[in-house]
């Protein structure tokens, strides 16, 4: 039953990657923006939550809840003041700007928090596990996966059943015509990035509670997240979950064979999907 255990652990790990990726997927789907600072923003949010816990003595959940509006504001501001100015047909300017932000953010965090590994303390929950008969699963991975599902259901609800979501989709289809309908694409983009940062905070909470983190780990999270988004297909949030699960399972399987192969196996799964389906598994929109 080792393979079943590996499969289950992999799927649950995929939940974490889907959380990393959900915000990216939303932003990428709406404005084709490649935010290379996404991973570093997750790490930044993790430090924000950690500060709430250590400085204010809050529980991690409350700290994350407080960090969410702050991160929303940060995302809104980032989009309105910086990213909106470089969005356009050419993908190079936003790519370069977010790369610059990524390096600046990494080194800013290094200056502020040093290179030491940190962790958000969660007490008894940390080692807790649940015996499901055939397999035993950790409570924390299970909660991560459940949170990913909740986040995706919520984002999908927003996307498909609200006026704001309508504006998101319309702007994504055709920003000029959306403007003729009274929708300001730049404002829509700012709100979308703000929402993405709320999801990033949730991802950061689990990142920080499950494992050690330091200022340098952002880019690797960005790659996992992007792989999940691309595997899933542009604009499909459930596809992003599927992408996260594929990477998670591949990593778990790789690690089961040889612990050094964990990350490698995830990347190879991504490359394989890209070779077979260059537009991802469930592409919604055309890019």
């Amino acid at each position: 039953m080792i393979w079943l255990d590996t499969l289950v652990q992999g799927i649950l790990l995929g939940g974490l990657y889907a959380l990393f990726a959900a915000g990216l997927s939303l932003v990428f789907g709406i404005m084709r923006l490649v935010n290379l600072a996404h991973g570093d923003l997750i790490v930044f949010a993790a430090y924000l939550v950690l500060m709430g816990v250590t400085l204010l003595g809050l529980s991690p959940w409350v700290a994350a809840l407080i960090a969410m509006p702050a991160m929303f504001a940060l995302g809104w501001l980032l989009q309105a003041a910086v990213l909106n100015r470089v969005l356009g047909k050419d993908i190079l300017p936003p790519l370069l700007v977010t790369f610059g932000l990524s390096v600046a953010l990494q080194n800013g965090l290094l200056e502020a928090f040093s290179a030491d590994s940190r962790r958000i303390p969660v007490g008894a929950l940390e080692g807790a596990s649940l015996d499901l008969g055939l397999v035993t699963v950790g409570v924390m991975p299970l909660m991560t996966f459940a949170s990913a599902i909740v986040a995706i259901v919520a984002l999908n609800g927003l996307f498909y059943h609200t006026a704001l979501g309508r504006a998101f989709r319309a702007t994504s289809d055709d920003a000029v015509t959306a403007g003729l309908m009274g929708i300001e694409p730049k404002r829509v983009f700012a709100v979308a990035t703000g929402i993405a940062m709320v999801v990033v905070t949730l991802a950061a909470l689990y990142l920080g509670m499950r494992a050690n983190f330091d200022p340098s780990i952002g880019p690797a999270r960005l790659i996992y997240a992007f792989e999940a988004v691309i595997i899933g297909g542009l604009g499909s949030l459930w596809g992003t979950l599927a992408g996260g699960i594929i990477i998670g399972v591949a990593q778990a399987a790789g690690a089961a064979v040889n612990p050094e192969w964990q990350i490698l196996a995830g990347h190879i799964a991504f490359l394989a999907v890209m070779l077979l389906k260059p537009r991802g598994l469930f592409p919604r929109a055309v890019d």
Partner: protein
Amino acid sequence: MLLETRALTANYGQFGALFGVDITVAAGECLAIIGANGAGKSTLMRSITGVIRNEPGMVLHKGEPIGALPSAEILKRGIAMVPEGRRLFASLSVEENLLIGGQARKASGPWSLEAVYDLFPILRERRKNPGTALSGGQQQMVAIGRALMSNPELLLCDEISLGLAPVVIRDIYAALPKVRQSGAAIVLVEQDIGKALAVADRVYCMMEGRVTLVAKPAEVTREEVHSAYFGVAA
């Protein structure tokens, strides 16, 4: 005056498209702008709706300069557009396409989802379909309905008959009197001279970025229109 352009000029890079265009639209009026391909009609619409930004004073809405405002602001002032080529949102259903037309401007008026469905009953049947899965004529109905949803004081229609079968064009034009009854002024941009003259109170003819004729349909001869349209006597 509801809308006015004053010496409106526009260019794409180094290419001039409009050279000092003056038009006026009174409240409740139906205006037709006719002209051949490349006459500058669509550029005029794009300038009025803020897709192309101009000097503020080149476009006036109730006397206020709006030439430099973005599209979204223009819509909120009650000027709605049926763009050339319909431009429905592909990821939105018919109903969502209609709803999005009305969500940015909260103005009271006769138009609602139900009123649009009454105007174009076929859309009620197709409301769950993706907007782009419809026939060209039905898509045009959605585009008109979408613009009406904001209860505009001025409805700009850019080439609403282009590429449609005559019988379909007839259906769409049949809806225009009901739009007028609701009090909205209409600007029809048309290549079809006959259609335009039949419904408009006044007609502007454009050629090569300039207005070449302003007249009431009843007071103008066929020859005058032709020479203004083609630049040669017919």
